[in-house]
């Protein structure tokens, strides 16, 4: 029972952090129809911003998260405005050129970071990183829990933004019918830039939450990008609630796989879910839970 409970708690807590990164992805992918392969790399940049602030000013990653999000919001905006948007709508030989562009951006960003910080593993280890409390034989790590709470707050805030404000509604409207949104007076280009930037800032937030728990290096993002895809497909594109439930589900499934099957196969669990969802639930959880 303790084993089951511990596994479940660990899975839920890590799943919440996955959800924040994935919600940024689902926003970009669902709302803008951009398959953004640079998303993971941008998360990694967020981690390095926090790391740099931690190392130079001793700023705890949870506080460093705020400047990191602002910087990444800016980077996301510039990337969208000056590169991705240019490829959008341009007639090219390959309809997938936009995907290839994001891949190139992701790899380019990784190399720039490698140039600045080298490939060495680095961590922002604080005494807080290992603190935890105990509940009925289960240990609950404080940084995981804090990460989880911040993650939930971000997902909730994003959900409210998208459904309760004009700005959020404009984002969704642009996704559903770009021209019609323009008739309503929405500057669709600006909204697209905003959406990409917001998604990127959320990825940075996720990275900042991971930093005190783990460590970082320029290629750290590969497994997280894969997880984002799995969650986005699992949750249904463009759905915050879908991304949240997808993130939690993936976190729990992976953790159970690693505990009861083998730690070496933990990523296989996610990929199995990915294939099953594509085959049997093509719309993702969004179709089941509304939106």
């Amino acid at each position: 029972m303790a084993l089951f409970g511990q596994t479940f708690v660990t899975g839920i807590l890590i799943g919440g952090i996955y959800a924040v990164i994935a919600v940024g992805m689902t926003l970009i992918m669902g709302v803008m129809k951009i398959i953004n392969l640079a998303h993971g790399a941008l998360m990694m940049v967020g981690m390095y911003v926090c790391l740099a602030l931690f190392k130079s000013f001793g700023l705890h990653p949870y506080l460093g998260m705020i400047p990191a999000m602002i910087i990444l919001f800016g980077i996301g905006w510039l990337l969208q405005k000056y590169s991705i948007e240019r490829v959008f709508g341009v007639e090219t030989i390959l309809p997938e050129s936009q995907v290839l562009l994001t891949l190139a951006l992701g790899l380019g960003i990784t190399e720039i970071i490698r140039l600045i910080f080298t490939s060495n593993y680095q961590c922002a280890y604080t005494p807080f990183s290992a603190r935890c409390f105990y509940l009925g034989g289960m240990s609950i790590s404080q940084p995981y829990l804090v990460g989880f709470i911040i993650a939930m707050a971000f997902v909730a805030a994003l959900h409210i933004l998208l459904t309760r404000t004009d700005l959020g509604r404009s984002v969704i409207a642009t996704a559903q019918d770009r021209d019609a949104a323009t008739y309503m007076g929405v500057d669709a280009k600006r909204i697209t830039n905003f959406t990409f930037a917001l998604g990127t800032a959320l990825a940075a937030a996720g990275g900042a939450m991971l930093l005190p728990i783990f460590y970082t290096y320029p290629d750290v993002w590969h497994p997280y990008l894969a997880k984002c895809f799995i969650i986005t497909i699992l949750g249904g594109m463009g759905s915050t609630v879908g991304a949240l439930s997808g993130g939690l589900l993936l976190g729990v499934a992976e953790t159970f796989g690693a505990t009861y099957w083998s730690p070496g196969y933990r990523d296989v669990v996610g990929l199995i879910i990915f294939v099953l969802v594509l085959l049997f639930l093509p719309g993702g959880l969004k179709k089941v839970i509304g939106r």
Partner: protein
Amino acid sequence: MKKVKLGLVLGLAVVLVAAFALPGCVPEAAPPVAPPVAPPVVPPPPAGPIKIGINLSLTGPKASFGVIDRNSLEIARAKFGVTEIGGRPIAFIVEDNRGDPSIAKSAEEKLATLDKVDLIIGGYSSACGVTQAAAANDLKVPHILVNASKDDITMANYEWVFSGARVPASHYADAMWSFVDEVLIPGGVKKVALFYEMTDWGTSSAKGLRPGFEKRGIELVYDSPYDSTATDFKPMLTAVKAAKPDMIVAVSYLMDAGLLARQAAELRVNVLCYMGQAGGYTMPEFLKLAGENVNYTMSTANWSRIPAWKGEIAGVKWTNQEYYDAYLETYNAEPDYHGSQGFAAWQIALDALLRVDAAGKPINRENIKAALEETKLMTTMGLIEHKEWTDDMGHHYYNQGLPLTYIVQWLNMKQEIIWPLEGKTADYVFPVPKYEER
């Protein structure tokens, strides 16, 4: 379009540099490499310098190990002060393989074919060592291994590959077995959980460990590989805890060792003894990563500064302790067995080069190889002989020596030698206190 993209890349670079180039966050600069060796020689040397290729993981996940190796090579080079042999200066050509086996292989090929080196020293991780050894043997360039310990590397009958001072992975535990028999089994250890990183080194270590437990009637209640680049080991540790082992045996690199120690403490995976199999557990950085959670962790180790190994090369006397002191002074950190193997690698290389020269033969690949086959030298790792022999597990080795092994334990956040008793720096603590009582 092109212009725009270029502008974008530059712009991005500027943003990133502006964001990161804050004081103090520049990555730790590599310690200064020893000054260039070649002093101005009046008559041009007849055949150019003697080129020594160094092929190590100097950046990336395994960088800490590669750097400690290179630092120790530099200490050895400075210590013995030999800058030229037979009128030819000695030049080091350093390649960083980033801990990536394919890069390690191409670096080896570059050193052998493009730089035309006479000898290569290198190989930290086993995965890299495997590709480097194969390439060196194909290209017929003598190679001295530094750490890469997978048994197969010296069981492959590569005539150009020499074990140097490294210990084959399945022998890391040699000292552990006497500790198990004399201390752990009488102390009540009946069940063991084994987990190991899933690449060459971990799997070959695990393969060597299992029969030892079996023979002693110790039950393996958990046995699993894991991905050392993963970031969350809690599921695995939760399963380990549920299996209720008396002892954990772990084969880990550095970052994973740090996270494992932290997360084991968080989950209170209490055992009588946590035994690492060298690797990350003996590194000074392990302390940085895991903080006070390093305490009571034991590890097998391939080296100790305590034994009074000493000798003389090129007229310079050395002792084991001197290497330790020099490293501590130069780099402000304690070396571990990886570094000692790096120091010993240059001892072995230099000894071979001097013997070739002393015999009046030209220093080339063939002659260096012949000299290495005859190596019988006292080093910081003890007596190293390149021999062909078979161990009690039936492994048949070529060009392989067998340094002694030890057990260390972290006590009060310091590494102490606890076994064998004659080399100890502190008394062992067993069984270790529970996490909640520390």
